[in-house]
């Protein structure tokens, strides 16, 4: 592999933000036609490095050199890097939901005929590009009507509309299910065989191991090493060692559950879709949670797990139809989120940026946002108490930020997740519902978050974990429910849980899964 010509070299890149040195002397050598993975803990600087490369942070705002195709380049903006064939697909997708697939693919790059957009040509070219990424849809379909996996493909098709030589993917599979992830990885392999170079950032080390030719590891804004997967015989443990700087013996902390009696129960839960009322999203679902127990919810994407959780959490999703919630032996009615919080429920949403945090806030404000009454008297806030609370959570969860005055928009994904966790731990919940709690989070931080979850359970709280990663559910949960199309299809105890059983239960109704 290392005999391939060098396509890109980034030399001693240093990038500072006010108060934070995000990158310090980072070096990266990418060879033409390879898949180069970049791994590192949350906040290590991976996304920042790619933003430097793609001109999001223009020349002059960083130190160091970028040598691309043998010559030094100084991109002034994203346009400039795209013209050179470098296309980045950001961690957060940048599609316009209300526009069609074709419109999105050619946004800013529309094929024209005599000044007007040539929609015939656009649709034809879109079909061609969609075929290249294996996306079978009508180009007129609105982006909001297709699943995340397909949206990701639209992003890639969009990249191909720009004659890409170097494709950068920042955590492309974080929000995808197994099948969609596999499809994406196969696609990257296909690109490689056609000579397209890819850089991929991911926290899913099994994928990295399976697909990457070389791996560059970044820790605390510095390059630790670059591994050649074939020559060095790299496996996941080896990558983890590089990332965290020590051996990590197990992915899950040891834990002996202290399970008590059933204290929370949902019975015959029925909920309809908020807009199309004929669609039933939760169909007669029932489940229980015991004190000290970690309960998992397994299911394919779109199975209705988030919808179940949110509708229980103060009817924050859909139209409630029927069903009861029983807590500590008494029936409770939760008509609003405020009710749910008052009854000791907490819901950590899967999409922390869109609905979990106010990105204008700082860490302090975010931490206390869901229970201001705890730091106020007669409605008047106590700033010192607020600071102390936020600071103690920052320490406990080891959130990486200079102070709790830091804006949450400036934190890396993993650290934002810790802030969201802190926000809900601050409400002292009895039942904590975590929706994809480790999405986009590095191995070290995952381990920490598992530890936190176990500690919360040991304090006698009930914890519900919704996750699309089966190993995570199997490693963490005491009991797992499987959900398929809005129906709970199985309940599996820890000792019986294995990927095959779960998978079978998750897809066990006669109807074929469409997404």
């Amino acid at each position, binding site marked *: 592999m290392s005999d391939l010509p060098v396509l890109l070299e980034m030399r001693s890149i240093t990038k500072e933000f*006010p*108060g934070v040195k995000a990158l310090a002397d980072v070096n990266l050598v990418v060879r033409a036609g390879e898949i180069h993975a970049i791994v590192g803990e949350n906040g290590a600087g991976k996304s920042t490095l790619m933003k430097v490369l793609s001109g999001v942070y223009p020349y002059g705002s960083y130190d160091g050199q970028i040598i691309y195709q043998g010559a030094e380049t100084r991109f002034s903006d994203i346009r400039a890097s795209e013209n050179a064939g470098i296309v980045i697909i950001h961690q957060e997708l940048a599609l316009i939901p209300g526009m069609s697939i074709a419109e999105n693919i050619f946004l800013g790059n529309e094929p024209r005929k005599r000044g007007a957009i040539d929609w015939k040509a656009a649709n034809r070219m879109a079909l061609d590009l969609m075929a290249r990424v294996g996306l079978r849809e009508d180009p007129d379909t609105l982006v909001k009507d297709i699943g995340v996996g397909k949206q990701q493909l639209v992003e890639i098709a969009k990249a191909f509309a720009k004659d890409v030589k170097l494709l950068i993917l920042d955590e492309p599979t974080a929000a995808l299910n197994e099948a969609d992830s596999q499809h994406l990885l196969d696609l990257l392999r296909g690109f490689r065989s056609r000579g397209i170079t890819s850089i991929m950032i991911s926290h899913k080390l099994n994928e990295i191991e399976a697909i990457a030719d070389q791996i560059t590891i970044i820790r605390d804004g510095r390059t630790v090493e670059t591994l050649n997967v074939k020559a060095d015989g790299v496996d996941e443990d080896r990558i983890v060692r590089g990332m965290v700087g020590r051996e990590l013996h197990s992915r899950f902390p040891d834990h002996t559950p202290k399970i008590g009696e059933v204290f929370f129960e949902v019975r015959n839960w029925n909920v309809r879709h908020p807009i199309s009322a004929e669609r039933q999203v939760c169909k007669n679902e029932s489940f229980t949670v015991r004190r000290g127990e970690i309960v998992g919810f397994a299911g394919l994407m779109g199975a209705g797990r988030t919808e179940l959780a949110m509708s229980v*959490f*103060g009817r*924050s999703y859909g139209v409630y139809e029927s069903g009861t919630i029983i807590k500590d032996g008494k029936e409770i009615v939760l008509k*609003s*989120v*405020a009710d*749910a*919080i008052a009854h000791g429920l907490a*819901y950590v*949403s899967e999409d922390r940026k*869109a*609905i*979990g*945090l*106010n*990105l*204008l*806030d*700082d860490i*302090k*404000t975010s931490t206390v*946002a*869901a*229970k*201001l*009454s705890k730091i*106020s008297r007669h*409605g*008047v*806030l106590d*700033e*010192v108490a*607020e*600071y*102390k609370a936020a*600071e103690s959570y920052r320490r406990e969860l080891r959130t990486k930020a200079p*102070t709790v*005055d830091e*804006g949450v*928009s*400036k934190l890396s994904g993993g650290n934002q997740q810790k802030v969201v966790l802190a*926000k809900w731990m601050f409400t002292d919940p009895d039942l904590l519902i975590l929706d994809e709690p480790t999405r986009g989070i590095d191995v070290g931080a995952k381990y920490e978050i598992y530890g936190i979850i176990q500690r919360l359970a040991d304090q006698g709280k009930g914890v519900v974990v919704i996750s699309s990663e089966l190993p995570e559910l199997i490693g963490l949960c005491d009991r797992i429910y499987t959900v398929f199309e809005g129906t709970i299809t199985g309940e599996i105890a820890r000792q019986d849980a294995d990927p095959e059983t779960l998978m079978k239960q998750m897809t066990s109704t006669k109807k074929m899964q469409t997404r």
Partner: protein
Amino acid sequence: MSRIKDLQKNLFGGTTSNARQFGMIFTLVAIVVLFQILTDGLTLRSDNLIALFNQNSYILILAIGMLMVIVAGHIDLSVGSIAAFTGILVAKSMAEWSLPWPVAILFGLAIGAIIGAWQGFWVAYIGVPAFIVTLAGMLLFRGGNQFIGNANTIAVPEGFRVIGSGFLPEVGPDTGYNNLTLLLGLAACVAVVWREFQARKTRREMDADPAPMWISVLRMAVMVGVIVFASLRFASGRVGTSFPVSGIILVALVLAYSFYTRNTAAGRHIYAVGGNSRAAELSGVKLKRVNFFVMMNMAVLASLAGMIFVARSAASGPQDGNGWELDAIAAVFIGGAAVSGGIGTISGSIVGGLVMAVLNNGLQLLGVGTDRVQIIKGLVLLLAVALDVYNKKQGKFSIIGSLTRSFRRDTPTPPTAPPDAERETARTAVPS
């Protein structure tokens, strides 16, 4: 060199200072000084200062409500019409139904509350964008004013005029000054000093180093200097004039609302809704209630502003309040609020309003015609916000940001705080 650095850090940036407010006063003072020079000392003469306050207090009162509306992510175009509508009803209530004036004021506030509930209902519970609801309200209540008043003016009685053109009375020994105004100034000075020490204490409790002592001293000295100067000016005007009653109403409102937006849970909910309404909802914030409240509150303040205006001009007319909404909105945006909501402060808006007021007044003193005054004001609004946007993009020092950003929590404002409008400071303005 370290002193200069300290000063820079404390005035213009860094996270360890509570001196933004200082920067705010600084900018305003610069404009005042400019006009003071250009007008050969007319700007800061007692009578001009008093007139300046009298002519602008109602716009500043509107700016308070407008700030909250804009922070919550809405806009209110109807405030001028609501003011006029309330004005005519209140004038009529006194002239034809002979309500005593204090009752008429309560009646006016009640009208504001009812109108606010009407508009709040459409915005919060039906989900019609506030732009539309208040555009409709603008037509509705302007028409209402002319319908009720037959497009005539109605005079208001003497007692009522106090809230628009009254002054602090003369009491106590003859000092050559208005004693109550001096007393007010003294209270403000004490409060400034007290608050500075409170802020230092809070920072220490937060395990952060307070700004160096000399900065605190400098800041207090400047603030006290400004207050002393202003009180002497207001106290030494023509006999019978002093600090205006409408100014007192304004100061009281600024203090109360600053405290409310900065230091209470309910106030923080407004910012949460404007910053990310879905996230706020999932944190237990009652979205509808917050939206209803800001719209209703705005209408009540608009009614108050309308009554003060009617009191000042001694009669209610069909053209009252024309274009006020634009002045109030301009004040809020010059004061650093974000169009998309979630960012902005009361103090920033007041400074924004004062900047426009001083500009207006200074240009008029210079004999510039209203045509050119409008052109200049328009350009100032555009440039001020453009410069701010540009600076934020560059990640550099932002003038308006420096006026309004940060330290919301570094400097807790006690409810009994001093009457300087520039006290309250802002949440960090994060460009997204």
